[in-house]
């Protein structure tokens, strides 16, 4: 059988790279499968703001390269492939790549990020790469001394517009709101208002992009008056949000109506052993810092899960004799008394049964799986199967009854 990783991370943006760092630091065999160079969306912005420790901003590619080096220095493997299919149900998960290879692991952390949203405006598709762009750092050079427009007014739109002023003669931002109202943060808004190269068109949306083989003009529509106007321009940059790259997860893990992956605060998805992190997840703030945070939490939770599962399998499911699993908790007196009673019984029986103690709150998944709702509870296993369960008041007689029927079987 081919080698089995502990963790496969799909996607090497900030979320995936942080998961790689935490995974390999826990000495788990961790691989990031990343289509092409790592870095994600964060590597496509020259002016990376808000990441703590870099008050004057840093470059996206610079920060991402540092994260990738950090992950690799602790042993994370980075494989340049694109994952196209996943098998998530079994204990061993499989990721298939476009080149036809298969990678196997116990855990999958899904961090595929998001792609720019397109608006499907007339001319948008045909003039892609001909003046229509979704990436300022990729294409800004072409627009030196030319005029461009920016569609959108959130953080990314306004910050990228500012970057474009270093190249273009004018940058006109088309805003759907009333004059002065922007969706971006206040600091960026103030900077943009003070920038003489930035012009504004308010209450307007883009209706059409025109040009013969290359962008020549746009048609704008004033949403208050319905009036259409044509404006000459050489480039149209779209920053109107993103869509999660979760197509291949449809029908496999729970997604919300916008296609974002639903997780709890440990980054667990609807499938055990499958986690999600970063922009592709349902969350409140999509930034580099929160992506990295998600990745860290996912890898940490995965490590705990593996330890829990691995330990349980070895000690309980594969044990050669009957096992009593005692679910207790240090703060519940009755459960401590029950455990010491069980210890006495096991001693008396001289090794024909085994006792495994589980701190219920530290092993929530196992407790839940075996329907433990009360502490203390004792679950009896034989050959990896549950044969009985006792909850609440655990008396010597009840336990002995169960054990006798088990041992005499």
């Amino acid at each position, binding site marked *: 059988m081919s080698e089995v990783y502990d963790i496969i991370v799909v996607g090497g943006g900030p979320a995936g790279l942080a998961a790689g760092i935490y995974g390999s630091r826990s000495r788990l065999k961790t691989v990031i499968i990343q*289509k*092409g*160079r790592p*870095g994600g969306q964060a*590597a*496509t912005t*020259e002016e990376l703001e808000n990441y703590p420790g870099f008050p004057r901003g840093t470059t996206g*590619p610079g920060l991402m390269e540092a994260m990738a080096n950090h992950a690799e220095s602790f042993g994370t493997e980075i494989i*340049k492939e*694109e994952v196209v299919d996943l098998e998530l149900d079994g204990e061993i998960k499989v990721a298939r790549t*476009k080149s036809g290879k298969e990678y196997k692991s116990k855990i999958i952390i899904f961090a595929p990020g998001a792609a720019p949203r397109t608006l499907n405006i007339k001319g948008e598709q045909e003039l*892609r*790469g*001909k*003046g*229509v*762009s*979704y*990436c300022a*750092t*990729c*294409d*800004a*050079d*072409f627009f*030196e001394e030319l005029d461009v427009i920016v569609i959108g007014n959130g953080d990314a739109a306004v910050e990228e517009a500012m970057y474009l002023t270093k190249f273009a003669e004018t940058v006109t931002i088309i805003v759907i709101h009333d004059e002065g109202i922007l969706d971006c943060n206040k600091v960026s808004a103030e900077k943009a208002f003070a920038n003489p190269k930035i012009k504004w068109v308010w209450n307007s949306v883009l209706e059409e992009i025109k040009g013969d*083989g*290359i*962008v020549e003009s746009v048609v704008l529509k004033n949403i208050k008056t319905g009036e259409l106007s044509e404006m000459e321009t*050489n*480039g149209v940059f779209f920053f109107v949000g993103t869509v999660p790259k979760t197509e291949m997860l449809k029908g496999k893990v729970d997604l919300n109506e916008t296609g974002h992956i639903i997780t709890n605060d440990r980054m667990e998805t609807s499938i055990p052993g499958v986690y999600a992190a970063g922009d592709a997840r349902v969350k409140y703030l999509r930034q580099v810092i929160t992506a990295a945070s998600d990745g860290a939490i996912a890898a940490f939770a995965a490590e705990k899960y593996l330890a829990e599962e691995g330990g349980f399998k070895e000690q309980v499911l594969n044990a050669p004799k009957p096992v009593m699993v005692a679910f207790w908790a240090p703060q519940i007196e009755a459960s401590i008394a029950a455990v010491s009673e069980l210890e006495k019984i096991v001693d008396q029986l001289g090794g024909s049964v085994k006792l495994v103690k589980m701190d219920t709150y530290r092993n929530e998944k196992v407790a839940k799986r075996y329907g433990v709702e009360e502490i203390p509870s004792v679950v009896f296993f034989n050959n990896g199967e549950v044969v009985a369960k006792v909850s609440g008041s655990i008396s010597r007689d009840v336990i002995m009854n169960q054990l006798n029927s088990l041992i005499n079987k």
Partner: protein
Amino acid sequence: MIEVDKKTFEDEVLKAEGLVMVDFWSPKCEPCKELMPFVAEVAEKYEGKAKFCKLDAAANKRLSISQKVMGLPTIGFYKNGEKIAELTKDISIEDVEAKLKELI
């Protein structure tokens, strides 16, 4: 792959015989750099069947715009001095190879 620029483009690409593939890229374009190693592999695989060039579009802006390339990455296919096909944005290497096979 042959590195071309505004001085050599005419001779290496437009006046060349047979199929020429040009990878328009720039040092600041991350998606271009994601793609480039795979393009180099394809170039090696099809060596002799076509000519493979790359052009730093940022350093050769006017030339790129004259070729109606205003966005990266773009891969252009030329024959007899004319662009006969083009791939731009969201290019996967499988698309490049498929296009190449079709044109060879």
